[in-house]
């Protein structure tokens, strides 16, 4: 009866739709499918490939016309520059990466700590105007960050949160909270409330019952939700560039963007920094790939 990640997000309907299509299609169709997907993959992956190549090319090869795809000299110099500054100490970029880890991690933890109990409460208790409340919570996500960034900038300046990691952590947590509540409510709904009822009759309080029986079953769901929040915070650019300015506070996205411009741009360094920046997201996206698909088809699959 244990709810695993795979079971909790029901992939049933999607799978059912796939099977008959494949059967009907036969060989001819699958060849066409593979051909089209290959074209798509090449178009989508070419910039990524170029980024990786640039990150290991020497600077003069970067500017070669026509571009060289093979036979250039491979160098790890740019990757070294990402982490080590010109003076031999820590580079500004490596500080930015550390800031990103801290800000993304802390905001995710905060959103999870607040969002999971909230989702549990919305799932278990009769709350007045529950649907309206949930819709309101979700609606805060409809707004693009750029719409609210100016008022938040002004408010942050008033309370002294401007250009601080705490400020970014708070805004990211606030931004991730609605998503966490919605996604976790789906997972909590899947866990029968009767385990908690039974535990309460055994003599436990409601919170003890939640902690003993429901929470362990939610762990896969919490992990998936946290990864989504983590990816959002990691990638976030608009708030970061408006609300922070000093090198010691900046996260990676504005720091990498800051490399471009000026009189000359060290494209090798930009590419290497981007590769380093993209790696964690790729790893995490791979870990929750099933949920990414479920997220795309959320409306179709969920009640």
């Amino acid at each position, binding site marked *: *009866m*244990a709810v695993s990640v795979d079971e909790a997000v029901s992939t049933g309907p999607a799978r059912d739709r796939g099977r008959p299509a494949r059967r009907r299609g036969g060989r001819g169709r699958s060849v066409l499918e593979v051909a089209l997907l290959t074209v798509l993959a090449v178009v989508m992956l070419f910039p990524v490939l170029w980024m990786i190549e640039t990150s290991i090319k020497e600077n003069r090869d970067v500017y070669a016309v026509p571009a060289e795809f093979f036979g250039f000299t491979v160098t790890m110099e740019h990757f070294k520059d990402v982490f080590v500054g010109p003076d031999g100490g820590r580079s500004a970029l490596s500080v930015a990466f550390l800031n990103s880890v801290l800000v993304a991690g802390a905001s995710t933890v905060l959103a999870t700590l607040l969002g999971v109990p909230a989702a549990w409460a919305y799932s278990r208790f*009769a709350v007045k105007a529950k649907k309206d409340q949930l819709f309101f919570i979700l609606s805060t996500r409809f707004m693009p960050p750029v719409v609210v960034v100016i008022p938040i900038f002004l408010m942050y300046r008033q309370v002294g949160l401007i250009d601080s990691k705490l400020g970014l952590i708070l805004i990211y947590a606030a931004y991730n909270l609605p998503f966490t509540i919605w996604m976790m409510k789906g997972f909590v709904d899947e866990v*029968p409330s*009767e*385990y908690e*009822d*039974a*535990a*309460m*009759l*055994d*003599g*436990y*309080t*409601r919170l003890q019952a939640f902690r003993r*029986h429901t929470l*362990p*079953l939610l762990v896969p769901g919490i992990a998936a939700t946290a990864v989504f929040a983590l990816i959002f915070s990691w990638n976030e650019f608009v708030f970061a560039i408006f609300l922070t300015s000093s090198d010691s506070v900046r996260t990676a996205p504005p720091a990498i963007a800051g490399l471009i411009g000026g009189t000359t741009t060290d494209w090798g360094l930009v590419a290497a920094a981007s590769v380093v920046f993209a790696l964690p997201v790729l790893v995490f996206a791979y870990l929750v790939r099933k949920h990414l698909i479920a997220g795309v088809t959320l409306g179709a699959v969920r009640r």
Partner: protein
Amino acid sequence: MGTVAAHGLCKSFGKVQALDGVSLDVPDGAFFVVLGPSGAGKTTTLRAIAGLEKLDAGSVHLDGRDATGDAPAERDLAMVFQSYALYPRHTVYENIASPLRARRCSASEIAAAVEQMSRLLHIERLLQRRPAQLSGGEMQRVALARALVRSPRAFLMDEPLTNLDLKLRVEMRTELTRIHRSLGATFVYVTNDQVEALSMADQVAVLKEGTVQQVGTPTEVYERPANQWVAGFVGSPPISLLACHAEGDRLVGAQGWTLPRPRWSTAQDGQPLLLGLRAEDLSVEQRGDASLPGELYGLEPLGDRTVVDVQVGTTIVKVKARPTVTGTPGERLQVTVDLDRAHLFDADTGLSVSEAGR
């Protein structure tokens, strides 16, 4: 001590009125059955007593003390859930031990109690398994063990036998009655199976659409149903109901038949009535002075007996007969009625119009 009293319980879920003034008085040590069809509000009643459901109105008294606002843990009740609600991550042993762990019993006490329970319910072999590895019958036994492992004020059981196959259900019925007798504890037992109710209960409360229709011993509920609905719900095959009215010393059927007017009835002349006849109070094999004309509709052989369906006017009347009975559909016959055991209901209100104390 272990009395449970519920008064005027009301609970609605949105537009659905699940409980509409349910009152129950369960004496100490009783096997009290709440009987009703699915959706009648039985589970909601139990959950209200357990403190799992917030009431719109009404009160729950345990051992005479008002417990309406108490948390479930404070009520000292044990419950077997309709779905068993065994903890999926825990072994059978840990499931049964849970109520004792919550009360901080020592490890040796727990081991002894779990061992005793597993012997009583024949689940010694299963202690290290998880609920997913159990059959329905085994889960049901584990759920019972988890409830019985301590001595609460009362046991609440929500259709614990419904998911079992017939053979096991009959076995467990006997078993539960035996356990109840040996513990001397108060049981509030919910079921939609009237056979279970009649065979196990000291007292039955019949529930329909969130209201109590009748409370009484199984015999009272069966022999003196308070209304037409209870008469129809309790008993198998179901009671046959014939439209009629009283006229002088006769009972005149809508389809033209007449019977002597029963002396025990309080019905007025001309009042629209329903005559309720149970299959065992009718006969197609013996002759008597009160009988209905009809024609054979069909036979249902059930092994130990045969139910004869007789069409009287437009109504099918079920008659119990010996298994040797024969006949061809369409054949005309007389159904002999034991009028002293018949029931009369007001056709409009459904209420019984028999003299009290008959």
